[in-house]
């Protein structure tokens, strides 16, 4: 069957069971959009306000569902607008395929209108990228893009397609029908990046280290979610009978209602995690790259005890810290192998100590003024109203850390946040993607006034498509997290962090066609949020909070992860 390049792209998306794509039309993707018109009953296209929103939406779709997110943009500025979203996905290893248009083949390299070398631009922030210069390679390139995005350590892949390729006609052979040898050979890329088999000696060593440990510490990172390893993690924790800390990326990867959960570890981790780190005699890390936000100081992190690291990417071993034992491969597979061999252990005494620390150092946020709405109070209300079952997306800053600290995440893929890149403006697009992937779940985007101002344009998309998410703005009129650092390290010189913008959030929300509410006093919190959740439409809620709340505990830059400060 002869199809145009644009139709071939549609057929390839359908092969991958893509039901939703996010994007924005433009000159170089006119043919692709014409095909989207033709395929509209099979592929839903959400047209965002800005390409960045589309990339974050594809990311949120992927994080909340485990499937590959897809975004489409035109050449030049359309493509560069995707870059922040692609980089966000890259840093957190999120599977995404970005399709960009480019100028006609004969105009490439001539500084043509809206021409950008997007494969060159995105080389450092994609797992791989392609430019398709021959129609015969188009279908297999798209298939490869999906394979690379999902295989091994996941990540974003960009496919750049010049406009005339999308117009050319070519025989489309569905993936179900085998390609001939010549075609296969032309497209074969050796991806022999399979996880290493677990050596028997390594397995024995791991079992020995675990058996010899009296005070084990289990630490789980985003790899647990990527590998769908939550059930095996739970089993591991129960068998070893050890306390658990989760990274920001792994919130919900372990049920936080479980008694063994200690909270986060690292820069804004709990004092309990820090105490446990200091006193443990084995550090078992699952699906983590030991980012600087966790280890804080590479010279002092877990140097007193053996460290076992499980990760799918061999390049993450001995990169940021040296470890005793490296187990390379899919976290779910490795944990299954370990669990099958582990005997039931009992560390009642160690866990009693952990419980004591938890009582001694609870996460509490004191109000500064008796009238204050504390973020903790806000998240407790959210917990109550949603039975801790909502999907929370966030932007970046203080609100992000409070969400991680105070909302009780019980399931994987419940917390969607930009951990590695720390992208302000991520949340609203991500919430949109998460809601479309999970129509039956409540989705709340937690944002601050700073982040909100970056990409609030996407409220128009929510209104247009009537995507019922709750946009909760924690408005303190300052860039709270940066300001907090200015308090600590810059003698309260609040350079450009006291924003004091004049934005009327309620009026703005209404102007976009989104029902909007204000929370100004403690008494408003419950009724307003209750009303917001009862409406089956997009809602904005602005909650005004004191600008002097800090995110605590905190490990100041360069200090040891064992010694967070509790007050400032």
């Amino acid at each position, binding site marked *: 069957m002869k199809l145009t390049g644009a139709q071939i792209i549609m057929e390839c998306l359908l092969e991958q069971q893509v039901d939703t794509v996010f994007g924005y039309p433009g000159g170089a993707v006119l043919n692709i959009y014409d095909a989207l018109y033709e395929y509209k009953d099979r592929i839903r296209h959400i047209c965002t306000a800005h390409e960045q929103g589309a990339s974050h939406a594809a990311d949120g779709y992927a994080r909340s569902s485990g499937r590959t997110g897809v975004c489409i943009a035109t050449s030049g500025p359309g493509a560069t607008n995707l870059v922040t979203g692609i980089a966000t996905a890259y840093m957190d290893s999120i599977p995404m395929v970005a399709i960009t248009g480019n100028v006609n083949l004969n105009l490439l390299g001539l500084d043509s209108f809206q021409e950008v070398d997007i494969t060159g631009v995105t080389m450092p922030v994609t797992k791989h990228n392609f430019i398709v210069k021959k129609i015969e390679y188009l279908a297999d390139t798209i298939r490869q893009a999906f394979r690379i995005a999902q295989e091994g350590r996941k990540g974003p892949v960009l496919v750049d397609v010049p406009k005339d390729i999308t117009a050319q006609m070519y025989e489309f052979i569905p993936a179900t029908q085998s390609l001939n040898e010549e075609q296969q050979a032309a497209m074969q890329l050796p991806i*022999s990046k399979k996880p290493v088999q677990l050596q028997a000696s390594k397995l024995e060593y791991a079992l020995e280290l675990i058996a010899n440990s009296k005070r084990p510490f289990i630490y789980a990172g985003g790899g647990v979610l990527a590998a769908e390893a939550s059930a095996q993690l739970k089993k591991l924790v129960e068998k070893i009978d050890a306390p658990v800390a989760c990274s920001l990326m792994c919130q919900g990867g372990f049920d936080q209602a479980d008694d063994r959960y200690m909270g986060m570890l690292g820069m804004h981790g709990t004092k309990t995690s820090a105490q446990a780190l200091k006193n443990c005699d084995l550090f078992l890390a699952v699906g983590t790259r030991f980012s600087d936000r966790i280890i804080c100081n590479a010279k002092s992190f877990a140097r007193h005890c053996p460290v076992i690291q499980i990760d799918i990417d061999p390049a993450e071993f001995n990169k940021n810290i040296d470890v005793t034992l490296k187990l390379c491969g899919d976290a779910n597979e490795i944990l299954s192998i370990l669990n099958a061999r582990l005997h039931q252990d009992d560390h009642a005494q160690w866990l009693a100590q952990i419980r004591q620390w938890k009582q001694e150092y609870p996460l509490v946020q004191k109000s500064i003024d008796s009238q204050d709405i504390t973020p903790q109070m806000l998240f407790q209300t959210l917990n109550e109203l949603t039975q801790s079952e909502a999907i929370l997306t966030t932007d970046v800053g203080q609100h992000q850390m409070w969400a991680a600290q105070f909302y009780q995440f019980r399931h994987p893929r419940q917390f969607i946040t930009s951990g590695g890149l720390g992208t302000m403006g991520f949340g609203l697009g991500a919430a949109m993607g998460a809601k479309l992937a999970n129509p039956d779940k409540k989705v709340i985007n937690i944002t601050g006034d700073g982040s909100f101002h970056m990409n609030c344009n996407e409220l128009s998309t929510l209104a247009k498509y009537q995507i019922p998410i709750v946009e909760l703005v924690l408005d303190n009129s300052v860039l709270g997290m940066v300001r907090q650092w200015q308090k600590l390290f810059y003698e309260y010189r609040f350079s450009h962090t006291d924003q004091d913008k004049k934005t009327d959030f309620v009026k703005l929300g209404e102007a976009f066609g989104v029902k909007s509410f204000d929370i100004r006093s403690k008494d408003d919190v419950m009724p307003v949020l209750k009303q917001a959740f009862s409406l089956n439409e997009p809602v904005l809620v602005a909650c005004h909070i004191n600008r002097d709340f800090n995110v605590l505990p905190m490990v100041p830059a360069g200090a040891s992860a064992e010694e967070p400060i509790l007050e400032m």
Partner: protein
Amino acid sequence: MNHQNEEKEYILSVLAQNHTGVLLRISGLFSRRCYNIKSIVAAQTEDVNRSQILIVVQGDDRIVRQVDKQLNKLIEVEQVTVLNDHEAVVREHLLLKVMRSDETSNQLMAIANVFHANVLNVSADDMIVELTGTPSTLNSFIECYKPYHILKSLRTGTMAMEK
């Protein structure tokens, strides 16, 4: 300081798909991750679909292990080998233009003969010689010619092949 952390030069032999941009991906990885490239040589192999890229990296053991693993993650890279001096033949090619006069000519020729260098061109004021050898041989050769005023020198970068 333990010997593992000593900085030295390592030769990496990378076999990659012969695609547009593959050299950019490899060199980009080096600059992005702050690894130092001393030299890089890239060419198509006997198989037109493959490129062989030889990279000399300055660093310690740890860095070389990282480079190796990061290179392996590039989709188009098929194989990375860290070559060892005594397990590989190592060669570099030099073109050198040196000032000459009738007085210095014999001395320059004598040095060239000692090193088995070839004279490619002789003009009234200068001559061009070529030499293939190990990087240290080339260094010695250049040292010998220095007093005669070197006008220009070009080195290819290190090539190496496993024995």
